[in-house]
């Protein structure tokens, strides 16, 4: 405290220029860096998706070789999951958690900065694999052996990049937990905490639980590759399916790591624009916690076709179906929050509502996949691709966009261009359906995923899907332009920004001063 008191009487600003961004330990600066990084990765991952959809525009191979196509699908997934969605939610956590719980900063500011730069170097390493002999990893983001062991020079680079990302995520998670547990303002009991912070607290525990498992799995791949161990090599007494179990023990909680913060965001936005507190607050907290718990016992539903014993298939079917219950509670509570509310449709609300509808579609197709007999048909087809893109794009990504539209005036101090935002919304929401809905059809009709070329009967819907993809991608230029415009200027935003603001972040001026809540606020 003696050290901190030195700063107490004068709120000092950041250093100028590049030095600020290299050395800052301020949660808002680090949050901004995470968000900008995430946006850049969203565009790079989107570029890979563009190559994929351009090749699939019509039958035949026009643009790329099959091997390069596989690099595109693999890198698209790795970049979007670990580079775009996760860092975006970490950026939001950095910005908003201290402001929501009335803390001056994150608890461990230097570690905070370290975890950002680890992520930066992880992706520098991962993206540079395009320039080494053999090209980028091409075995899918699931990295199944033995196929992944056919990767060229990129192999150790990708593994090390994953190690760095994992370390970065674990540090970020520790920081969130320590901040929330220790630095809440007086009177802010856990069950008064805003739902975005709650969802992140639970997400952070998931990260700490599963990232080391993933790191262990890929390290075993590394020793199989370089030191002739046989963890996953049947000829040496190992088991290639073991990797799939380890991967999905990480991988299933990972999908909740991406979606729980999205749930938190939507739980902030729907009340604001319904002018009414969230319905069933405690049920929302418990539902999030149940989803997190269940996420640890459903992993093998990703691998029903590997030939599991009947008892295993039944267990994973039933546990998977159970997830529908707390997820349903959340959907119903959001709907009940709007019920007898006073609704208005500003851009954050539009994205949150699109989330509500389209995530539900993704959730329901997920329920269909829990049923093993039909999953034998769905598995590894475009039906699966459609499902997880519905939960990840109009699910997680829409929630992140909603969050940006919700808090951008608080970050920049300027209102953004509402008309442009609405254009962005409608174009994005329409094209995302043109892009992903037809993929249900081709999947059911028998088109496998991860193929660069397809039989003639899938041609029509693939072309529709590709048109949707181009429209969706181009619409994001509006998003980037809107953010740049808003950062540069615009009508000044009030402290509350919205008509019915609720929560501590709306009690500080806009833009939020460099240091907020150096004196703890009182929460009643």
């Amino acid at each position, binding site marked *: 405290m003696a050290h901190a008191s030195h700063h107490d009487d004068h709120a000092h600003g950041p250093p100028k220029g590049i030095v600020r961004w290299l050395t800052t330990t301020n949660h808002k600066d680090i949050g901004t860096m995470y968000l900008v990084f995430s946006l850049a990765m969203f565009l790079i991952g989107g570029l890979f998706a563009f190559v994929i959809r351009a090749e699939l525009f019509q*039958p*035949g191979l026009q643009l790329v070789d*099959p091997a390069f196509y*596989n690099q595109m699908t693999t890198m698209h997934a790795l970049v979007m999951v670990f580079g775009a969605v996760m860092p975006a939610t970490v950026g939001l956590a950095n910005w908003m958690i201290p402001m929501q719980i009335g803390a001056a900063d994150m608890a461990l500011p230097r570690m905070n900065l370290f975890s950002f730069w680890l992520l930066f170097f992880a992706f520098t390493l991962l993206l540079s694999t395009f320039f080494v002999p053999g090209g980028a990893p091409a075995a899918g983001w699931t990295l199944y052996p*033995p*196929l992944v062991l056919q990767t060229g020079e990129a192999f150790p680079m990708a593994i090390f990049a994953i190690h760095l990302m994992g370390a970065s995520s674990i540090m970020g998670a520790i920081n969130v937990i320590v901040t929330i547990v220790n630095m809440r303002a007086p009177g802010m009991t856990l069950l008064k905490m805003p739902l975005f912070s709650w969802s992140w607290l639970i997400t952070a525990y998931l990260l700490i639980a599963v990232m080391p498992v993933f790191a262990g799995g890929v390290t075993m791949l590394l020793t199989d590759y370089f030191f002739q161990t046989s963890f996953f090599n049947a000829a040496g007494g190992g088991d*290639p399916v073991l990797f799939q179990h380890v991967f999905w023990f990480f991988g299933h909680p990972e999908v909740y790591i991406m979606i729980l913060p999205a749930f938190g965001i939507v739980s902030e936005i729907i009340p604001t624009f319904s*002018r*009414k507190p969230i319905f*069933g*607050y*405690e*049920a929302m907290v418990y539902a999030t916690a149940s989803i997190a718990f269940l996420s640890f016992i459903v992993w093998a539903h990703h691998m029903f*076709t*590997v*030939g599991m014993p*009947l008892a295993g*298939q039944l267990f994973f079917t039933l546990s998977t*179906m*159970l997830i529908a219950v707390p997820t*349903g*509670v959340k959907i*119903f*509570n959001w*709907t*009940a929050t709007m*019920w*007898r*509310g*006073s*609704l208005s449709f500003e851009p954050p609300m539009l994205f949150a509502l699109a989330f*509500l*509808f389209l995530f*539900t579609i993704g959730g*329901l197709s997920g*329920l*269909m996949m829990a*049923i093993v*007999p039909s999953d*034998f*048909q769905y*598995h*590894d087809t475009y039906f699966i691709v459609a499902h997880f893109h519905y939960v990840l794009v109009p699910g997680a990504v829409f929630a992140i966009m909603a969050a940006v539209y919700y808090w951008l005036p608080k970050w920049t101090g300027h209102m953004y261009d509402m008309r442009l935002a609405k*254009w962005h919304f*409608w174009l994005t929401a*329409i094209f995302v*359906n*043109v892009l992903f809905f037809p993929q249900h*059809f081709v999947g*059911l*009709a028998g088109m496998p995923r*991860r193929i660069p*070329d*397809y*039989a*003639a*009967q*899938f041609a*029509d*819907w693939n072309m529709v899907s590709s048109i949707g993809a181009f429209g969706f991608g181009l619409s994001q230029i509006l998003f980037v332009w809107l953010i740049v415009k808003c950062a540069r200027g615009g009508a000044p935003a009030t402290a509350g920004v919205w008509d019915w603001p609720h929560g501590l972040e709306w009690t500080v001026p806009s833009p939020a001063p460099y240091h907020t809540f150096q004196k703890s606020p009182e929460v009643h």
Partner: protein
Amino acid sequence: MHIANRFLRLSVVAGVAAMLASLPASADWRLVNMPRGVSELSREIYSMHMIMLWICTIIAVLTFGAMIYAMVRFRKSKGAVADQKMLHNARLEAAWTIIPVLILVGMAIPSVEKLIKIEDTSGSELTIKATGHQWFWQYEYLGTGVSFYSRIARSSDLARQKGSGIDPATVDNYLLDVDKPLVVPTGTKIRMLLTANDVIHAWWVPDFGMKRDAIPGFINEMWISVDPDKPGTYRGQCAELCGADHGFMPIVVIAKPRAEFEAWLAAEQAAATALAATE
């Protein structure tokens, strides 16, 4: 501002119209839904899929209906005032926790029954071993000495090369044709043993309903059976990413009546014996 809003509405209408306009392309139901298939298992899987699809559609209609009603009825612009006392309702919350559990139990029971049947390979009359290679299949009729490789047909392989200048539309069964198809008897329970020589592959013919991974070092099993009245040619593909040419290792199965199959197998056996004698 008003003009912009009208443009927005128009673009929504245009988008929906464009989607509807593309519907004629889907007039063929087989292009948008799971095939009913030609075996007992595939029909049961199809019926399970359709039950789930309808239940999910009904749930979606009800949930979306409530959401849309709220969005229309409780608009601030229409003068709606928020009821800020509406914070929870134990009875309602219990209902929307318990009712889904009951629906799920209702879904689970038939699926368990079907699953038990699917996993029961007993009583099969013929065993065929399929081995996945990068990037072709090998089939062995166990106990008969008949064994052969099955690769993508030359016509598809030429057309699929980048810059081949061949229009895929001019190729018969583009990417779904092989040089030597698997031949099976109709009306027979056939046990398939699946394994692989290099990386993981998956054997899948949608009309048979089943898909299973072929994993090096493991032997997986599943059974297929083609209806006696449905002889014909059925096509599928490898369904597990297996490297660069994953998209180019099709599966073609010709189902023949029992007697024709026996004749075919005898001829294959004779050819195999003759080949062995010359070596």
